[in-house]
């Protein structure tokens, strides 16, 4: 037995030495190859190294703050600052008949603040939706609940929560004009090959959508939504294109136009409305997401209009 073990030990040591040498050589070769052939990989590997270092450092820290800085800031201040567009937009933010400031977004903001144990304050300096996003990016508000669409452009600068309202794109069509070009074809066929003038708000994302979805139509840009709608009612243009809620609001708030106007919702489009937060508020983002999930805040255009039946058309 002893002789056998005496024989095996040097052999095992030799094998281990060989393996270690091989690993060292292979690693050297690999790093050389990677460094030469894949220069892009180098920083990634370096970063993963630093991340590991950071985690190690953090775990070594003995003192932690009571809560993440983004939440702590709000708690210390005692109020949640919410960016909101400086215009009425029923049913999201509007003054109701009792002269109370209310709406879906206002209620969401108030609910969130209440859950955090602070009061709510609205920052309403922004004149356009993009300015609302900028307010959040500049940290002039903790977050924005202001009927903001989750677009990739905006996502470059801010983070979006999960959507609290999913709606579709809508078309507001002059019934007479569309009957003119129907000639016995079904409505779906006519709409897919829509010809004629389609009104959109100047500079809005719907300019691009129209060109993409209705290549045979002519885009007519209007300074405001109200002017575009007026043109459809008068029959100067065939239709106007915006989100489902704005489109439905017209016939709901002005029922006398329902005979002239037809609302169409496109089932294969989606416009998701979400809360916008600064990119460096990860904890608050998680909090908002969980808040929306816990309270089942997940509206569709229909359920929203059911909850706020007395909508008024936005200016």
């Amino acid at each position: 037995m002893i002789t056998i073990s005496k024989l095996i030990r040097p052999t095992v040591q030799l094998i281990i030495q060989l393996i270690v040498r091989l690993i060292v050589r292979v690693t050297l070769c690999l790093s050389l190859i990677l460094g030469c052939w894949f220069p892009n990989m180098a920083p990634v590997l370096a970063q993963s190294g630093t991340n590991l270092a950071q985690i190690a450092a953090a775990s070594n820290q003995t003192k932690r703050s009571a809560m993440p800085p983004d939440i702590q800031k709000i708690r210390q201040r005692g109020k949640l600052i919410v960016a909101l567009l400086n215009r009425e937009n029923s049913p999201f933010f509007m003054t109701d008949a009792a002269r109370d400031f209310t709406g879906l977004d206002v209620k969401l903001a108030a609910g969130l603040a209440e859950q955090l144990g602070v009061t709510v304050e609205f920052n309403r300096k922004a004149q356009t939706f993009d300015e609302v996003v900028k307010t959040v990016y500049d940290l002039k508000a903790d977050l924005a609940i202001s009927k903001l669409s989750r677009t990739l452009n905006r996502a470059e600068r801010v983070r979006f929560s999960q959507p609290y309202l999913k709606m579709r794109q809508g078309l507001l069509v002059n019934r007479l004009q569309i009957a003119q070009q129907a000639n016995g074809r079904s409505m779906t066929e006519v709409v897919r090959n829509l010809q004629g003038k389609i009104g959109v708000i100047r500079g809005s994302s719907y300019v691009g959508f129209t060109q993409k979805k209705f290549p045979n139509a002519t885009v007519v840009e209007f300074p405001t939504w109200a002017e575009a709608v007026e043109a459809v009612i008068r029959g100067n243009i065939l239709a106007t294109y915006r989100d489902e809620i704005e489109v439905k609001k017209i016939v709901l708030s002005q029922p006398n136009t329902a005979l002239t106007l037809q609302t169409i919702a496109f089932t294969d489009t989606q416009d998701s409305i979400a809360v916008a937060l600064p990119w460096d508020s990860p904890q608050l983002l998680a909090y908002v997401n969980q808040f929306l999930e816990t309270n089942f805040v997940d509206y569709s255009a229909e359920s929203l209009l059911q909850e706020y039946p007395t909508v008024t058309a936005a200016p």
Partner: protein
Amino acid sequence: MFKFIRRSTVLTWLRSPWCLVASVALGIYLGTQHPIVATTMAPIGTLYLGLLKMCVLPILLTSITSSVGRLMMSHDAKQSIQRILIVFPVGLLGVSGLAVIIATIAAPGKNLSEATLKSLGVLVNQSGIDLEIALSSSVASAKDADMSQFLLSMVPENIFSALSEGQTLKVLIFSIIFGVALGAVHEPVIERLFEILESIYKGCHQVINGLTLALPVGLCSLLAVQLSDLGTEVLFSMLSFVIVAIFTFILLYLLCILIIWRQTGYSLIQIFSALKEPTILALATSSSFACIPATISALSEGLAFDRKTTQLVAPLAITICRFGAVAYFALAALFVAQLYQKPLDLSQLSLIMCSSILAGMATSGTTGVLTLTMLDLVLTPLKLPLEAVLVLFIAIDPIINPFRTMGLIHSSLAATALVAEPRGRMVEILPLSEAELQ
């Protein structure tokens, strides 16, 4: 003896017009004041209507087959067919022309107030006709109403399925063809078949006659249910159109009475009284189909028209000509044009006249809301939209439908009276028919 007198008194009372007036009044009272009672009474009306409709298909099949067969045999078929070919188209043109003239003069859709438009819009919104369209994905082609489909629907692929599904138009076409074929077989054995058909007809007819005793009860229940269903809100916002439509049908009714009066030589009161049953049935049931037996007996027994011709022409007129729907579509098309402020010239007016005849005839295979969708046949050539207004027409249809059916029944009565001239035996038959009326 005592018992007999009492029973006959009850029978006389049940058949008297005063009993009908009382049941109508009770129906109106219950329908407007006690809708809950009206709803509980609904099964009685449905039962009555069911019993009435039960015998209509056998009557249709036997009466048309035997009358066509006998007409073919008696060699005066040519004359009847010629008359039908003149009276039906002229009648249809007259009815749609009348409607176009009335709607042009009365202009029910012009200058509607803002408040009216608003309440109409609320109605349209309530129906939730928000259209949902997928921009990509394959298009599911919906079958729309058109004329070729109507022509195809006229010929039954299987007469028994047409009978069991109650497709009147197909049964009618089959009966005519079958009747012509029977008429062409000159063999004595055919006579026996005619006798069988005749006896089936008489049996069903007897059932229908017996049912007239239950008419006051059925009438009361049917009226109460109809009235309790009615939304008054709709009525007020569409008031001008409803009034014009009802006026048109009443005018049509009076015109038809005049035509029949001229054709027969009876006094106007006798005619009113002879036609009382189909009129009341039409108003109470809104079902032209259920009125066919009453129409035949009113003409052949009440007014002594030749039964053979009446048996053929009356169901034919009711099923194919659809005068009521023709007039209504012409009115409705003009109303829509006025609503959308589309000026119409003379050629477009004549287009409405013709297309509403086609659309009206196309309703013969349809029931319910589908009847109204045929309006599309009139509006499409005018490039007017249907969807929004269809909601409004559907909403007011419970009020319009009884009058539309009355218009149809009476126009068909008048058309039949024009085709089937009364035999010169009026004086002989008169006492008999009067006895039957009571």
